[in-house]
């Protein structure tokens, strides 16, 4: 084991290795997440309901991560289109067979278990984008192919409608393009395309404009559009430097909408304060750095691209969630990976981490991956 890990490139005094470190950090974050969910629902009729379910998902997530990390990455590379198709089809079918929750038709219901395909598909979306990127060397061609593939995936997500996940998917595409050496100039086009798309969304979905107005001046309508923003401010203030302690989060339980998912960070801040949530911010930054170090030592461009893009997507999602909760961005409905309640998100994050670990391992030369990856980073 040590021999294998030392190949990855980092060995902390010969005992703690990167994969072990990733497992430990994710386990700690997951358990902390369960505690945060209990804390956010402590005043409800069943305070252990969500936390217990999250704990079960954490165990399932660990099993998925372990299995995903054991499968050779060359297999992921070889079967990338088929894996992506296997996760894309449920994304389309959910529009017809799924159940509607909070105005979004994005879940499959199996009794009391709900599966969100747009969350589960994230690692395979990145995988297929990396595969597309490996097919073409030219910047424009690569950009067009990535754009088209991203659009195909974005349409069913937008139709649910789940605009929070759309943002994450768009970032995933941009991350793959940029890390694989794409031209900055090409980024002008998606930004130009975003202008009419934004106007359409604002006209079609008035609540988006309301959210923006509430973000710019929350005090103009403190009980309406500004409510969510104001409650974030008050919840963080109540937490203070040391927090009010677990189980005492009156504000998060009473005022914060979805304190166990969309407002998980603010809810956590109320409990453990500034000093308690600093490790969360530091933890996600460290996760990004670990991804960077793992990628540096990976033995092909395809692997590097996947590790970096997947890590960037998870970190981006975490930072968007935290930014919304600290009032840097308008509410988006994006959850905090590993902390927010939701089995699909948890399993998807751990599955992604498992594939990252698989990509970081050195494999005996079989030529396939290297052939595909040639010319990837132009």
């Amino acid at each position, binding site marked *: 084991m040590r021999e294998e890990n030392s190949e990855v490139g980092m060995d902390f005094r010969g005992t703690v290795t990167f994969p072990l470190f990733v497992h430990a950090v994710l386990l700690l974050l997951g358990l902390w997440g369960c505690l945060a969910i209990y804390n956010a629902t402590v005043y409800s009729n069943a305070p252990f309901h969500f936390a217990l379910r999250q704990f079960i998902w954490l165990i399932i997530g660990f099993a998925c991560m372990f299995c995903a990390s054991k499968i050779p990455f060359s297999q992921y590379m070889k079967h990338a289109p088929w894996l992506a198709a296997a996760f894309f089809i449920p994304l389309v079918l959910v529009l017809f067979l799924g159940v509607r929750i909070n105005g979004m038709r994005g879940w499959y219901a199996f009794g009391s278990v709900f599966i969100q395909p747009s969350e589960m598909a994230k690692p395979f979306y990145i995988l297929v984008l990396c595969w597309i990127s490996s097919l073409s060397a030219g910047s424009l061609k690569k950009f067009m192919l990535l754009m088209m593939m991203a659009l195909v995936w974005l349409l069913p997500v937008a139709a649910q409608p789940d605009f929070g996940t759309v943002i994450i998917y768009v970032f995933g595409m941009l991350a793959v393009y940029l*890390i*694989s*050496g794409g031209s900055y100039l090409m980024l002008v086009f998606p930004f130009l395309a975003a202008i009419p798309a934004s106007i359409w969304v604002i006209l079609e979905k008035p609540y988006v404009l309301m959210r923006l107005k509430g973000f710019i001046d929350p005090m103009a309508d403190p009980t309406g559009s500004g409510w969510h923003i104001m409650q974030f401010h*008050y919840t963080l203030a109540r937490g203070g430097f040391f927090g009010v302690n677990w189980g005492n989060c009156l504000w998060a339980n009473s005022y914060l909408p979805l304190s166990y998912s969309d407002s998980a960070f603010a809810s956590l801040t109320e409990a453990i304060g500034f000093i308690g949530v600093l490790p969360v911010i530091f933890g996600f930054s460290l996760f990004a750095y670990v991804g960077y170090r793992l990628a540096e030592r990976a033995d092909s461009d395809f692997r590097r691209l996947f590790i*970096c893009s997947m890590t960037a997507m998870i970190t981006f999602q975490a930072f968007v969630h935290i*930014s919304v909760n600290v009032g840097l961005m308008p509410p988006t409905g994006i959850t905090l990976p590993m902390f927010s309640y939701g089995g699909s998100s948890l399993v998807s994050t751990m599955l992604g981490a498992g594939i990252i670990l698989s990509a970081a391992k050195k494999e005996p030369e079989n030529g396939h991956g290297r052939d595909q990856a040639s010319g990837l980073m132009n």
Partner: protein
Amino acid sequence: MFKNRNKIIIAVFIAWACLITFRLFNYTVYSRDHYLEEGNRHALRSGIIPAARGKILDRNGQVLAWTQRYNDLVVETYPGICLANTAVIKELQGKIKGLSPDKEKEKYIKRNLLPSEIYALKDYLSRYQGIRIVPRLERRYVDYPEVRKILGTVDSYEERDYGVVRIFGVSGTERKYDQHLKGMDGEYEVMQDRNRNWIPGTWKLKTEMRPGDDIRLESSLEEIISRDRKTDEGRKL
């Protein structure tokens, strides 16, 4: 190329983390007091616990005047957040007999709710802020006109900020002993959610309510009646 691009992304994330930390420090430490005060101002509501007006008793302890509490259902219909719509009002009218529009038709009122009717309203109250149960105090007297002359009358006014009705003496014993009878209102503080529902566990008593003192007259009920009749006869003669 890869290394440079990846470094840029890591640098962006680190800068983002610093910005988040700075912002978080502002809310949790630097400007904390300001936001705490503002939050409390929006969430905390003061309320009055109206003091029960004292009874008026005769020399033998028989109650001549007392205060009775009733609960009325008020359904606001002006436009706003979470107000009951026509369908909900119809649904309510099916459950609460006698719920009808007031004179200005701005609200629907049903006076003197029964305990079973209050129970039936449980779910509606937490869902619509326009549906409220308003307590009402009414002064009641023994049914003797002779006694009413002595006891006098009361009037009432509504303190809109607190939604309570205050009773005060206008004439007779009610006015003479108003200071003793009225007692002292209590005051409480409670956190309310967006729909003005009380948040469980946040109710705090600020000032204890002191009920009004009971007043005992020097005459008995019979004496008051006979004295009044004699006076009337004297007047006739």
